[in-house]
């Protein structure tokens, strides 16, 4: 399974980031277009096109911008131009269903695919329904499930597992967007997932992460231990996640 590390342009100081990428480069990186073209370009150059996922970042973009379709379409034009300019291989659709509805998302998907000449990775959300999942699996080789961090409840995990199994049995790759639960990840036949929890934990939760040989362990730091916070802690967590990345990369499903 491919673990894409997200948020690699944040958390660490630029000096530490360079050191980490030099000494223990990650295998796979996801960057969001919302972070800017420069950040995306750096990320793709570090790991190569085959090992890079581009997220549209459309949802984040809507925060702060006046939420209109016209503004989002301009953003889509820039997204398309970037994909074309750098021949990005794997990129997600602009899954803003909850704001503008699925019809508008489908229109943007069509434009994205027509103007890039490539299939995007469509992103399923609960609101799309199971029939839509079947449609995605029938028409795409690589699909994603979104909302795994906040919107999928514990009792829904068995349903997600069935959906992933269904796609797997049909030879379709599934990406779990923002899947951070490393202890249960083994139970899902995801082809890939991404996580920024290494940097979120360092920045907000002040947690230190360790790879224990199978999953990531999180330990809270003592309050007031500010020396450990920030860039150094992010760099530490990042390196632990790279170990986890390598471990999971060798995993194959039955």
């Amino acid at each position, binding site marked *: 399974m491919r673990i894409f590390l997200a948020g690699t342009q944040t958390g660490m100081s630029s000096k530490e980031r360079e050191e980490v990428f030099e000494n223990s480069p990650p295998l796979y990186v996801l960057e969001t277009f919302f972070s800017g073209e420069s950040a995306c370009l750096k990320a793709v150059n570090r790991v190569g096109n085959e090992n890079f996922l581009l997220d549209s970042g459309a*949802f*984040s973009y*809507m*925060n702060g911008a006046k*939420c209109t379709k016209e503004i989002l379409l301009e953003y889509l034009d820039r997204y398309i131009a970037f994909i074309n300019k750098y021949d990005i291989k794997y990129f997600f659709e602009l*899954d803003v269903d*909850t*704001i503008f509805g699925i019809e508008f998302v489908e229109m943007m998907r069509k434009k994205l695919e027509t103007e890039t000449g490539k299939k995007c990775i469509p992103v399923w*959300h*609960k*609101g799309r*329904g*199971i029939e839509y*999942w*079947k449609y995605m699996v029938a028409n795409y080789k690589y699909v994603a499930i*979104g*909302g795994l*961090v*906040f*919107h999928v*409840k514990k*009792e*829904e995990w068995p*349903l997600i597992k*069935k*959906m992933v*199994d*269904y796609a*797997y*049995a*049909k*030879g379709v790759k599934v990406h779990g*967007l*923002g899947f951070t639960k490393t202890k249960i990840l083994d139970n899902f036949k995801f082809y890939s997932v991404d996580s920024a929890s290494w940097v979120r934990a360092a920045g907000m939760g002040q947690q230190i992460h360790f790879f224990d040989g199978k999953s990531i362990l999180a330990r809270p730091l003592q309050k007031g231990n500010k020396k450990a916070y920030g860039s150094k802690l992010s760099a530490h967590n990042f390196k632990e996640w790279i170990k986890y990345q390598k471990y999971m990369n*060798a*995993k*194959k499903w*039955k």
Partner: protein
Amino acid sequence: MEIVYKKIEELKPYENNPRFNDDAVEYVANSIKEFGFKVPIVIDKNGVIVAGHTRYKASLELGLDEVPCIVADDLTEEQIKAFRLADNKVSEKAEWDFELLEEELSDLDIDMSDFGFEDLDINLDIDDSEFVQDTEITKNKDDKKEIICPNCGEKIEI
């Protein structure tokens, strides 16, 4: 290329074999039972396995006394190390054409689940009502419309 039969106890698994293969042993054992031992184990001149650790484990499980082997005595130590990795790596690059696979499987009366093939006609017996549906748009304390990003959890005023 000469195929020689070796006593199973003469073979030695490579101690640094970087592949997890335990989950595949049952299927390989089934394959040997059904079709016979058709792919020899590749060993070096000392009997250390170069390619075929899963076949070796399956042979132990089946209680075989002897297994067909190819001795790669024409390779240097470095080449053996490289081949051991390359032999495993190249299979990762191949992919199934699932439509053709489905056609091929449908022609067979042999139960292919014995060899790890899952049912491609798998049904997805889930109903939308089983999911807890989220409120798409809510109002915040200032009575403004708000939505939560399903990926990052960020609250966005709209």
